[in-house]
């Protein structure tokens, strides 16, 4: 006699499929955001890798001014003096800029969290105070100014820009993470864990870090659009070009467009439009990350 259906053992594979479907249905907005932003960032990454870097002098071109065509049906972004269509180079530059900013902000935030964690582990209250002071002192100078100063010494190349942006993001996140550690350490369950005799390492790994990383991720995402603007501003100004120019990035296009403003104004129009759209896209990504992780970051600081 066959066993009744309610006692039949369910297939593991089916169970997994059922759970995945349930998770997709419940978190559809999150997956939609992830797929949408993934496609945008992925395409920009492909564009950055697929097209060669256009050197700063080659953006305007060396040919006759009559060769340059304004935006039209055949060339949506127009051409430069050599007749090179600017659509692909602009998107490739946008991809390089966006990925540089993404990598710098993520690495910088991880560094900031690690710094705050080490300080939390070693010095606690005194360490938090120092972190807060350091972060506040660095925050009292415009980040753009700091970028210009370091660009004057180390250039505006990819590594130097990534290092400076990452360090600024790291210091900012470290200051915030110090405050968060202090708040979390005074919460009831952490105090209870300490009273029960848990080691500091165990409290850090089991109680503090799992609650801290979503805040750090939300903070890093919120820094992204401002970092993109700063990176583009650095290339636009041409600071540090004598050491290492910001070649092949969006700022370089904007700078070249600004220099040739009265001859080829479309060199300024379209890279600027792409930059504005990407900044708004990154701001909406930050909003989506904050919403998904349920981390309302204090608006007063951003």
């Amino acid at each position, binding site marked *: 006699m066959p066993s009744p259906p309610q006692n039949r053992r369910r297939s593991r594979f089916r169970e997994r499929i059922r759970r995945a479907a349930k998770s997709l249905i419940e978190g559809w907005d999150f997956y939609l955001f992830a797929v949408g932003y993934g496609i945008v960032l992925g395409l920009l990454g492909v564009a950055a890798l697929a097209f060669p870097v256009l050197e700063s002098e080659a953006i305007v071109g060396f040919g006759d001014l009559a060769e340059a065509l304004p935006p039209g049906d055949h060339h949506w972004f127009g051409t430069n003096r050599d007749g090179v269509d600017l659509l692909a180079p602009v998107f490739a530059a946008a991809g390089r800029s966006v990925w540089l900013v993404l990598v710098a902000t993520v690495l910088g935030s991880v560094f900031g969290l690690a710094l705050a964690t080490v300080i939390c582990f070693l010095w606690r209250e005194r360490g938090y105070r120092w972190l807060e002071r350091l972060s506040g002192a660095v925050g009292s100078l*415009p980040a753009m*100014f700091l970028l*210009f100063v370091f660009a004057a010494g180390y250039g505006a190349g990819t590594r130097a820009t990534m290092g400076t942006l990452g360090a600024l993001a790291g210091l900012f996140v470290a200051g915030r993470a110090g405050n968060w550690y202090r708040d979390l350490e005074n919460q009831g369950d952490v105090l209870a864990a300490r009273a029960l005799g848990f080691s500091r390492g165990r409290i850090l790994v089991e109680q503090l870090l799992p609650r801290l990383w979503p805040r750090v991720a939300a903070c890093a995402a919120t820094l992204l659009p401002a970092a993109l603007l700063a990176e583009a501003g650095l290339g636009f100004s041409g600071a*540090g070009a004598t050491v290492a120019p910001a070649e092949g990035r969006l700022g370089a296009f904007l700078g070249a467009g600004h220099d040739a403003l009265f001859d080829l104004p479309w060199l300024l129009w379209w890279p600027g439009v792409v930059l504005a759209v990407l900044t708004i896209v990154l701001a909406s990504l930050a909003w989506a990350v904050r919403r998904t992780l349920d981390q309302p970051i204090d608006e007063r600081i951003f």
Partner: protein
Amino acid sequence: MSSLLLRRCLSLLFRLLLGWLLVAVVVELAMTGPRSRGEVVGGQSLRLLRELVAGEVPESLAAAGAGSWRSMLGEATVASLEALAIAVVVTLAFGPVFGVLAARWRRHAWVEILLAPFFAAAWLPGFWLAGLAVWLQFHFWNQPGFSDPAPASGGPVAWEPLWRLVLVAVPVALGAIGWQMRSVAGTLKRAAREPHVRAAQVRGLGGGVLFYRHVFRNSLEPLIRSLDRILPAMLGMQLLVEWALRFPGLGRLVIESARAPEFAGLLASGLILATVVVAVRWAGETASRLVTERNA
């Protein structure tokens, strides 16, 4: 009161010293870069300071100005502060007002829709807008658009100097208004979710009275503090906008110095920027402390 003011003055002095020290450290660090290889590392700031006090502006910064450092820095600082003052006035005229309205009518979706363009404008690159303004002036008015060299006669509008200041201030303020609005609205919305506000609502206190007499008044301190938080970001954007417009201010000096590179110009501009930010933040903190003491 007097002891509070004395403590605040000491705090200002300490912060100014810390800010200047930080600028010197940053410049020293930057001078260890490949461009300066071979120079003695450390103690260069003192040499640069001596140069700034007694020396002349080098030829590599001819585009930013000429003559003695002191006169050039004075003129550039005054020009930048004038533009910044206009930007701050415009920001304060719109940002907090719209922020309060957004928080007051927070339950209505149309308010969010109406204010969405301002939020989006906070992310527009101001230096790009400044470049577009230059091009538009050239295209429609046949004027050079840049602040330097000055147009031979009249210019597009009657008050040429004021027009140039407004051109710098508007892209800077456009971004800051969105930030200010978001910050003020966020602070008030959080305050409106406090339990005592809900209790008052349950007891039948009207929306307007509750909001303006209790929520707004209780949030006065964080609101005052939020005014100075965007200043570094505004100054950063102003540096770029000034350079895009070739405006003879600190922005042009900073960027020409970074392009040259000329570290004396960077050190001087950094010291001035740090002084402005620290002083404004100190004033905001002092005002907020005074409000707290008065309410206590």
